[in-house]
């Protein structure tokens, strides 16, 4: 039993810290949670993404041939911890780099890899992922957007929803139904779609706090070149699950982000001269203990990966716990600092923590059936 990191990983941490302290400005930190309509902040972050890419810090988990560092799992963990704790902005293409790039590396042509990946890393191109639909949310495999082969093209018709960055994207990794007669998981394909193609309509969705984080996409007879097919025809479901083998230390973002939020909350309490009563301290303690335990839970998950241990369904568990803690933290912040704009906003946006990327209830179903072995209904 050993919680310490090897010396070479601590060395990696030192290098990264030094680079961050020299390059991460207050202006960048202030811009790190941009609202969807803030174009100036978006361009500031694009510049930051390029600076990170030029220094080799943009995509450490990627192989070196695509501009990454081929970082080990523990290095990825440390990278996530340090960038989060330094309050560095997330890459604009965080979804693209973590979820789309691994699929391009595995299934893409050489030309796709060479042209798409560096531009994604530098945020020269912005990527979105077309997955959820109005009738395919938690039941993703029920998606109905159709793609029909017509000569050298697929003709796409349908609708996507909750598409993060949809209103800014240059490219879309789009999941479509190519065989309506096959069982639902076996008739899906993955297309890389240029968002400038005729027939694509993007409508930004305004979220509960008035922000624009995501969009609805409408496809009307969009003719996508057939070489945009990523992976096998009707093999889209396996493309969608590729991502898991790459970004293995992503869970570190969960606890590191909560640690930062907790620090910010404590600082704001102190600045306002509030939060010293036993009830507030008790709630603070309740949140702090769970954040620490979430950290160890994620470390256990990584240890299991490294040493062949039992992963005990930790990924799904960690996400559930993260959402619950985040909402409790938001509630505490609002209860004590209700007139503070930023915490009031977090009180609202924290609702997404138990919805986005798979609801807590779906996660619990998965854990119940796959980890605890309870029978399906």
């Amino acid at each position, binding site marked *: *039993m*050993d*919680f*310490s*990191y*090897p010396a070479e990983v601590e060395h990696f941490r030192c290098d990264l810290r030094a680079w961050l302290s020299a390059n991460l400005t207050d202006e960048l930190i202030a811009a790190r949670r941009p609202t969807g309509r803030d174009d100036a902040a978006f361009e500031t972050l694009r510049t930051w993404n390029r600076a990170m890419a030029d220094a080799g810090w943009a995509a450490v988990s990627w192989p070196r041939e695509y501009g990454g560092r081929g970082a080990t799992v*523990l290095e990825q963990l440390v990278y996530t911890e340090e960038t989060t704790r330094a309050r560095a902005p997330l890459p604009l293409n965080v979804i693209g780099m973590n979820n789309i790039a691994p699929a391009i590396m595995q299934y893409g042509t050489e030309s796709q890899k060479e042209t798409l990946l560096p531009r994604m890393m530098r945020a020269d191109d912005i990527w979105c992922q077309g997955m959820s639909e109005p009738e395919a949310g938690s039941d993703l495999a029920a998606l109905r957007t159709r793609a029909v082969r017509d000569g050298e093209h697929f003709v796409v018709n349908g609708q996507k929803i909750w598409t993060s960055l949809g209103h800014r994207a240059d490219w879309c990794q789009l999941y479509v139904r190519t065989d309506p007669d096959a069982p639902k998981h076996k008739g899906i394909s993955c297309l890389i779609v240029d968002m400038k193609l005729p027939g694509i309509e993007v409508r930004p969705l305004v979220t509960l706090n008035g922000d624009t984080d995501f969009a609805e996409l409408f496809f009307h007879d969009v003719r996508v070149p057939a070489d945009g097919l990523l992976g096998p025809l009707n093999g889209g479901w396996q493309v969608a699950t590729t991502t898991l083998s790459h970004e293995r230390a992503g869970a570190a973002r969960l606890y590191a982000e909560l640690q930062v939020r*907790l620090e910010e909350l*404590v600082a704001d*309490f*102190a600045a306002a001269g509030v*939060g*010293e009563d*036993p009830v*507030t*301290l*008790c*709630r*603070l*303690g*309740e949140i*702090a*203990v*769970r954040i*620490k*335990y*979430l*950290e*160890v*839970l994620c*470390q*256990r998950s*990584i*240890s*299991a990966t*490294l*040493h*062949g*241990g039992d992963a*005990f369904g*930790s990924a799904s*568990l960690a996400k*559930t*716990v993260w959402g619950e803690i985040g909402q409790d933290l938001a509630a505490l912040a609002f209860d004590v600092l209700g007139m503070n704009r930023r915490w009031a906003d977090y009180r609202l946006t924290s609702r997404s923590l138990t919805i986005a990327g798979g609801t807590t*209830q779906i996660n*619990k*179903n998965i*854990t*119940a*059936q796959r*980890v*605890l*072995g*309870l*029978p*399906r*209904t």
Partner: protein
Amino acid sequence: MNLELTEEQVALRDTVRRFLAEKAPISGHVRQLLDDPSGIDDAVWQGLASLGTTGLLVPEEYGGVGMTMVEAGIVAEELGAGLHPGPWLSSAVAATRMLTRTGAGKAAAGILAGIADGTTMATVGGLGDIRATAVQHDGARLRGEIVAVPDAAAAGVLLILAEYRDGTGLFAAQANSTGISVTPERGIDQTRKRFRVGLDDVAADLLATPSPRDIAAVVDDVLIAMAADALGAARAVMQLAIEYAKVRRQFGQAIGSFQAIQHLCVDMYETVELARSGVIHALWAADAAPDERHPSALRAKAFAGRLATVGDTAIQVFGGIGYTWEHDAHLYLKRLLSWSEFLGGPDRYLTELGASVAHPEPTRGRT
């Protein structure tokens, strides 16, 4: 970074688990001892000693195995899962660590050797709140009354923390000495034996003069080992409830196929795995990271209230049968509740933890 158990640790876990299932099962052993003040029979204690568990933390020079809290935690978790009612935590952890952490080793060599080979059972009095005890020192005699002393009826040796000169003395008294009275305190959990110990001019040997830091470290060890025990209890009752949900049928199907039941089970699992995360970190910190030991013990204690909900939820999954005396669920709930209540309820520790987050410096001591 390696949080997996070694092969030896897995073997230790499996050996203790098998021993308890065969020699000290809940139906044939634990339930028989619910009203017994000692909570142990000689054969079971000697069995635990011969497996090396009583001397796990005793240094090799005193006849022990010289292992760490990580191994002690593995044993504690199994004892908790088996609802073991004997004085293992008192003797193998609290007393042993009190002797080794306070430099009493040489003066207490005989006691340590006895703990290791199972011929001595020991416990510690005055650990929780020494100033509240009215123990006085008069030559080598102890006076006063100490409450909430675990396993005092089973113990042959009582280690007593008492006011001594300007500080604290650690004394050893034979349990059968003249002037010692031992009165049961009936708490919620009959698998945990606690007593009020009266001391009326009891002859005792001074073993050491521990600093508050030494004593705080022992309290941390005890809290951490008890957290491992509670983890075992929570894990066991969760597993019982999940297995029940797989076989209990209503409306023509297993109740575990209903989402409402599934989510209760996942809630238990989430709490148990969070607790396990805290426990393994604390067990490691106890010996390997002294700066982290106290915060991790504090967290473990602060989490006790939430961990006890696993017992509540398990009873909900069992339904009516879980509300009966015959069913073991209540024994687990009581074990978890007694941990939650031990040395003060969770809110006090959560508040202390919150204060340490709000004011990270200087390092806060135990209040």
